[in-house]
C-alpha cells in the first residue's frame, strides 16, 4: 500500500527543530584547545582543591596515550579535539546567585521556552527539584533546603567539591575510573560541572530529583559529571532530560554518570535525551558519547536505568550495572529512536558478580529515514555469581527501507548455575495495521505514532509520570516525517 499523504510527511520532516534557538548570553569561555594548562585553568577557575586538579591532570595525561575507539557501528568525521572550547560559564553578577531573583532573566526565559517552569515549581511545592544546568555551571538549585532537612545532599558538582570534599573524594572515579575509556578519560580531565546527590542511610528521597541539561554557547563541548550515592537502605529516583538549540556545527558531549547503591539501597535513573539530531541530511547535531555505570555495592541493592533516546546525531551510550552485592538487581529499559541520518549504538552491560543477582534488559530500537540503530550489550556471569539470572529482550522496528537495525549482544557465562536468556526480533509496521487505523479515521501519522507507542509501552511504564507523557510526545516529534 502506498501512503497517500506522503507529501504532508515531507513538509513535516522539513520542520525546524522545535527547540532550536540560541540564547544570547555572553559566555565566559576558555579559548579552544586542550593541554595541561587548560586542564589546570579549568580547575583554577572552579577553585578546586589540589587533589582534584592532580586527578584531572593524571586523566589528561592518560588521555593523550589513548586512541578514539572505532568499534561502534557509527560513522562520523574525525573530531578535532583541539578545536573545542572546554569551559564555558554564563557571566555572573559578581557572585553566584543566591536566589532565582538573582538569575539572569534571559536565562530564566530560556528555561521557560524549554517548558521548565522553575518559578512555578517553587509554588508547586515539592513535586520536582531542579538543579538546572545551563551549559557547564549550575545556576540555580531549588528545594535544596527541604532536602537538606532530611540530610539529602543535592547540589551541583562544584558545590559538592567545596562543601563535601570527603564524599566526592571517596566516590569520584570509584565506578568509572579515570582510565576507563577514551571519552570518560577526557571527561575526567575537563569536566566542568554536573550534579551530586547523596542520600543518607535509611532515607527515602520524597521527590523525583531532576536536572535539565541544555547545551548552549556555540562550539562548546559539554562534559557533565554526575555522582549519585544511595547509602544503606536509601531510595532515590533521578530524572535527567535535555534539549538543545539548533546549530550547524557538531557539538561534542562526553558525560560521565556514576551511581553507587549500598546495602538495601535502590536507585532509579531515568533519562529523556532530545538533543539536536542534525537536519534531514545529517548536517549538525550532537555527538553524544556517554559513560554511565552503576555499582550495586551492597547486598540486596538495586539500580534501574530507563532511557528514552530520541536526539543526537550520534549516540554512544551503554548504561551499565555491576552487580557485586548478593541478591542485587540491575535493570535496563531503553527506547532508542533514530530518524533521518541519526546513528545510535546503545545498550547496556550487566556484570554479575554476587550470588543470586538478577538483571533484566528490555531494549526497543526504532529506525526510520536513513538512520542506523544498533543494540550492543554485554551480559557477563562471573565464576562467583551463583544462581545468576538474566533476561534480555531486544526488539527492533524498521520504518522505511533505507534504514538499518542491528543487534550485537555479548554473552559471557562462567558459572553453570546461571540462567541466561536473550531474545531479539525485528519487525516493521504492518500495512494491514495502518490500513485498519485509517479505516477507523486515524491518519497515517497518528497510526504510526500509536503503533510505535504501543511497541515501546514496556519501557514507558517504567518512566516516572512526568517523563512518561513527555516521552510519548517526543517519540511523535522524532518520527515526524518518517513514512509508515
Amino acid at each position, binding site marked *: 500500500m502506498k501512503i497517500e499523504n506522503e507529501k504532508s510527511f515531507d513538509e513535516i520532516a522539513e520542520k525546524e527543530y522545535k527547540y532550536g534557538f540560541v540564547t544570547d548570553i555572553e559566555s565566559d569561555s576558555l579559548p579552544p584547545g586542550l593541554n595541561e594548562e587548560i586542564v589546570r585553568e579549568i580547575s583554577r577557575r572552579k577553585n578546586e582543591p589540589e587533589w582534584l586538579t592532580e586527578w584531572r591532570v593524571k586523566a589528561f595525561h592518560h588521555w593523550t596515550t589513548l586512541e578514539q575507539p572505532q568499534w561502534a557501528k557509527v560513522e562520523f568525521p574525525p573530531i578535532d579535539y583541539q578545536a573545542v572550547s572546554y569551559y564555558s560559564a554564563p557571566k555572573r553578577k559578581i557572585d553566584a546567585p543566591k536566589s532565582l531573583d538573582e538569575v539572569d532573566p534571559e536565562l530564566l526565559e530560556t528555561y521557560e521556552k524549554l517548558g521548565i517552569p522553575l518559578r512555578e515549581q517553587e509554588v508547586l511545592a515539592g513535586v520536582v527539584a531542579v538543579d538546572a544546568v545551563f551549559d557547564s555551571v549550575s545556576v540555580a538549585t531549588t528545594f535544596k533546603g527541604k532536602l537538606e532537612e532530611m540530610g539529602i545532599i543535592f547540589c551541583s558538582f562544584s558545590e559538592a567539591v567545596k562543601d563535601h570534599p570527603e564524599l566526592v573524594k571517596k566516590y569520584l572515579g570509584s565506578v568509572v575510573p579515570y582510565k576507563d575509556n577514551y571519552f570518560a578519560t577526557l571527561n575526567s580531565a575537563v569536566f566542568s560541572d554536573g550534579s551530586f546527590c547523596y542520600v543518607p542511610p535509611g532515607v527515602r528521597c520524597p521527590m523525583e530529583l531532576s536536572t535539565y541539561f541544555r547545551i548552549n554557547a556555540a562550539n562548546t563541548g559539554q562534559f557533565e559529571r554526575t555522582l549519585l550515592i544511595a547509602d544503606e537502605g536509601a531510595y532515590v529516583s533521578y530524572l535527567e532530560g535535555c534539549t538543545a538549540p539548533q546549530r550547524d556545527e557538531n557539538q561534542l558531549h562526553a558525560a560521565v554518570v556514576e551511581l553507587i547503591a549500598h546495602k538495601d539501597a535502590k536507585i532509579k535513573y531515568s533519562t529523556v535525551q532530545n538533543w539536536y539530531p542534525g537536519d534531514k541530511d545529517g548536517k549538525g547535531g550532537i555527538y553524544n558519547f556517554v559513560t554511565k555505570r552503576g555499582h550495586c555495592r551492597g547486598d540486596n541493592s538495586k539500580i534501574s536505568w530507563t532511557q528514552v533516546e530520541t536526539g543526537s546525531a550520534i549516540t554512544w551510550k551503554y548504561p551499565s550495572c555491576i552487580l557485586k552485592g548478593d541478591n542485587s538487581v540491575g535493570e535496563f529499559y531503553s527506547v532508542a529512536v533514530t530518524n533521518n541520518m541519526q546513528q545510535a549504538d546503545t545498550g547496556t552491560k550487566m556484570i554479575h558478580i554476587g550470588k543470586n543477582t538478577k538483571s533484566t534488559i528490555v531494549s526497543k530500537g526504532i529506525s526510520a529515514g536513513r538512520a542506523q540503530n544498533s543494540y550492543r550489550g554485554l551480559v557477563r556471569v562471573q565464576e562467583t555469581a551463583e544462581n545468576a539470572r538474566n533476561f534480555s529482550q531486544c526488539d527492533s522496528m524498521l520504518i522505511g527501507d533505507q534504514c538499518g537495525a542491528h543487534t550485537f549482544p555479548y554473552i559471557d*557465562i562462567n558459572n553453570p548455575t546461571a540462567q541466561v536468556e536473550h531474545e531479539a526480533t525485528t519487525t516493521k509496521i504492518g500495512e494491514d495495521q495502518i490500513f485498519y487505523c485509517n479505516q477507523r479515521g486515524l491518519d497515517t501519522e497518528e497510526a504510526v505514532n500509536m503503533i510505535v507507542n504501543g511497541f515501546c509501552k514496556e519501557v514507558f511504564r517504567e518512566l516516572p509520570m512526568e517523563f512518561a507523557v513527555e516521552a510519548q510526545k517526543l517519540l511523535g516529534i522524532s518520527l515526524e516525517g518518517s513514512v509508515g
Partner: protein
Amino acid sequence: MDLKLLRDRAENAFRENGFPTSRDELWRFTDVSPVAAAAFDGAWKPADIPFVPLGSVVAVFENGKLSLEKSNLDGLPAGLHVGSIMDQADERLGSLADAQSAFVSANTAYFSDGLHIQADDGVQVDEPIHLVFLADADGMAFHVRNLISCGAGSKLTVVEEYIGGADDSAYWTNAVTEVFVGDEGTVDHYKVQRESGGAFHFQTIEASVGANAVFSNHAITIGSRLGRNDIRGKLTGEGGEAVCNGLYLLKDRQLFDTHMFMDHAVPQCNSHELYKGILDEKARAVFCGRILVQQDAQQTDAVQSNKNLLLSRGAKVNTLPQLEIYADDVKCTHGATVGELDEQALYYLQTRGIDPAAGHAMLTFAFANEVLDEVKCRPAKAHIEKLVHEWLDQVSA
C-alpha cells in the same frame, strides 16, 4: 583466476598479516597462538585408524593424502564426478574462499590435496558421499581443500568426517570447503569432527546458494584441543534456503569456536540456524552467529538460536548472536540461552521412578537431540547418534 596467482596472493596475505590475535574482534575469545607457535615439521606416515563407511562412495585421506587404495570412487552414477582436487582444474576454486582469514590464506597458499565433487545439471544422488580424513601424524599440518559443485536441479549429500588417532597426536587440520549450489539444487552437507585430543582443527565452509536452491549444513564437533568452524553462506538467488545447524560436545580443556555468517543478498530467502552445545569440565565454547540482511533482501525470514548446557563448574560460554538488518519487510529473530538442566524436569523423572543419573542422561540427550532431529541423511543420523551416546557415556562415567 590462475591457481598460481591465487596461491601467491594468498601466501603474501598470510605472510603479511600472520595469525590473528585476541585484539582482533573476530578472534577475541579464541587464542590461536599455540597454532602460530608450533613448528609443524612432522613426517608423513600412513594412518591406520578404523572408520565406518556411510555409503558406497568413500574418499579416504590418510594424513592429508587421498588414498585410492582405501577409497571407493568407482561405479559413480552418470553425471557425478569425484576426484582429487589436484587432478581437477576448476576456475571457481578460490572464488568463495580466498583470504578471509589467516587460515583460509594459508590453505589457499599451501593446500596439497582435497576432494572435488561435481554433479552435472539435473543429477540427483541420494546416497551420501563420505569424505574420511584420517590423521595421526604428529607435528604435521594438513591443508585440505574441497570443492562441491551442485548443478541446476541436482542433489548431493556429502559427509565430511575428520577422525584422529587415539594417541592424542598433535597435528593441525586446516580445511576449506567451497560449496556451489546451482539454481533449484540441493546440497545436504554434514561435518563430523572427532580429531585427536591434541589436534588443532580449523575449517572454513563457504557456500553460495542459487535461486530456489537449498543448502543445509550440520556441524558436529567432538574432538580437537583447539578449533574453529567458520561457516558462511551467501543467498544469491531468490527463494533460496539455508540451514546451518550444529552441536558441540566439549570436555577437558577443549576450546571450540563457531563463527557463522549468513548473507541475505536477495529477496525472499530463508535461513535457519540452530546451534547447541554441551560443556563439561573446563571446556569453553564460543559462538558468534551473524545474519546480514542487505537492503534489497525484502521478505527475508531468518531465525537463529544458540543454546548451551553447562554440566560443570569451570565450563564457559561466550555467545554473540548478531543481527544486521538493512531491509524493513523482514522477519528476523535470534535467541541465546545458557544454563544447566532443569531441576523440575529431573524431579519429575524421579517421581516416575527414573533415578537421577538416568534422568540426567535422558535430559542431556534430549537437549542434543533437537539438532539430530533435523538430520535427513539416515546413515549419517545413525552414526552421529551413536557418537553422541558414546560421548555422553564418557561424561557421565
